[in-house]
């Protein structure tokens, strides 16, 4: 069945996806809030940049990140000067790449959820003496919960499923950058089809269960609204 190397890859993948999802929720929510509320000229350009990973081949993103974080890139120089070494071919290099790669999957659902609320709940809260932070924590965020849930699931699942960016920026170091998708690739290269089957089937099962949970949760929400009516 699954070898130790497979389990290491699974554990690494889960660690990566969890880290990336949490960071994206922290960074993506303010960005989504700004995109939903702003009337600034920069809304268009910023939205386009956020959506870029949806259309770019992962290799293009990976290539530029490699250059950017490499020893002669601006970020590489910075991390070296700080005594952290360079980021490519490390776990944290993968985290940064995944943050960019999965960004639209987290920002867009949250942004949609906030936009769908309209300005009214926040106005109502303001007339009830709630200041800006109070309104954000106690009205905007709770009302955006379904969107945040969707964002977490999509961000997590998308990070689990990435391959191209990982190959470009992370290579293939066991326990450090060898995630499940790369491990499967290795098995196939080595003609270990049985191993590849087990891992692939596990991935399919995992993805299906995650998406099923998401839809069930959303369905229950919709049904709850329908049962009462207004």
């Amino acid at each position, binding site marked *: 069945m699954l070898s130790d190397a497979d389990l290491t890859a699974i554990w690494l993948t889960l660690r990566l996806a969890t880290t990336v999802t949490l960071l994206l929720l922290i960074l993506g929510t303010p960005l989504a809030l700004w995109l939903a509320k702003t009337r600034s000229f920069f809304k268009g350009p910023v939205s386009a940049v956020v959506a870029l990973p949806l259309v770019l081949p992962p290799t293009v993103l990976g290539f530029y990140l490699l250059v950017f974080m490499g020893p002669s890139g601006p970020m590489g120089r910075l991390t070296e000067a700080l005594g952290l070494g360079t980021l490519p071919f490390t776990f944290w290099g993968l985290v940064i790449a995944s943050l960019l790669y999965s960004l639209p999957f987290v920002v867009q659902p949250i942004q949609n959820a906030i936009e769908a609320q309209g300005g*009214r*709940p926040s*106005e*109502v*809260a*303001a*007339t*009830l*003496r*709630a*200041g800006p932070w*109070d309104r954000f924590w*106690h*009205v905007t965020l*709770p*009302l955006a*919960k379904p969107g945040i849930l969707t964002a977490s699931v999509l961000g997590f699942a998308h990070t689990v499923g990435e391959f191209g960016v990982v190959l470009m920026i992370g290579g293939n170091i066991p326990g450090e950058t060898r995630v499940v998708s790369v491990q499967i690739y290795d098995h196939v290269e080595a003609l270990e089809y049985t191993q590849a089957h087990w891992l692939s089937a596990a991935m399919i099962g995992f993805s299906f269960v995650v998406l099923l949970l998401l839809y069930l949760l959303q369905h229950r929400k919709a049904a*709850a*609204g329908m049962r*009462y*009516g*207004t």
Partner: protein
Amino acid sequence: MAPSAESSRRISGHFHLPLSRNGGSDHFALDVKLDLPGSGISGIFGASGCGKTTLLRCIAGLQRCDNGSLSVNGEVWQAPGNRRNTLPVHRRPLGFVFQQPSLFPHLSAGGNLEFARKRAREKVSVQEYRRVVELMGVGHLLAQYPAALSGGEQQRIAIARALLIKPRLLLMDEPLAALDQMRKREILPYLETLHRTLDIPILYVSHSVEEIARLADHLLLMENGRIVSSGPAPELLSRTDFPVQLGDDLGVVLEANIAERDSRWHLQRAQFDGGDLWLRDSGEALGESIRVRILARDISLTRDVNSESSILNRLPVRVQEIRADRDPAMVLVQLQLLHGDDSRRAAATSLIARITRRSQHQLALDTGSELWAQIKSVAIVR
């Protein structure tokens, strides 16, 4: 110069809000100078799109208006010219009831009230909380979520929520407009109770004459972002030259007292400055003050006393003024009442009849003609 006690009990200010989008024929979305009494209900009345809601939003601070000022009973909410002296919405001691109920869907009805109570201007005691809940009759609804409540119930929770903030000014933006007739009837009594029991000024926006006639003490008429008229509501509503075309809704509002009860015929006699009216007995206490509304279309005029008629109420009147109606077949006749307890006060009370131009001709009506007004129906509005 220190403001006198009199002038500090007022809501005054001005708002000049430029029309930002599609500069129409008017240069301002809002161009008003306010001076309203700092107590009772002030109705803000006008057709849709005349700027009533925008005015209310400016007062609340929800709509930014750089060229404006506002002081409420001596407190400055917005000082002219200086944006730093403008209080943000959440620092203004106001309650706002929106046209749509706008409860937070993620909180139960009780949770919605709790949201306000926690953020109130000063601590809300258990008794005060109970009183508001009782006043709006929402005690049995608190565990429910907004989605499970009817529109009327939601709006009552929303009003209770606004009251729990302990506002110094309550703003209501057509709180009944989104409700059907049944729900309106269900809520109006609560609003009247509010009026009688609370000591805070209420600004009530509406395009319904019925609501305004029933609730408002003072009236502000708006048209195209401007205030066209302002004054005591019964007086303003009784003018034939009412600046906003009311059509069938035109009529007078009279303040009266229940003076006598006739239990045999289930009637009660209401006494007002210009005379007496017999009304169907709807259970008011003797001596209770009520407000009655007589629509112009419900008054007919006769030369003789004509006592053989099914009409119950007949009052002697003198024609004060005849005005053209918007409808070429009709005229509006302003009538001065001739008898009353006090003839001087009776003279100040008038009725309006809307009759056909032909009847005017047949009766040879002119200013000064004395005749009888037959009143087909009188509605108690409060």
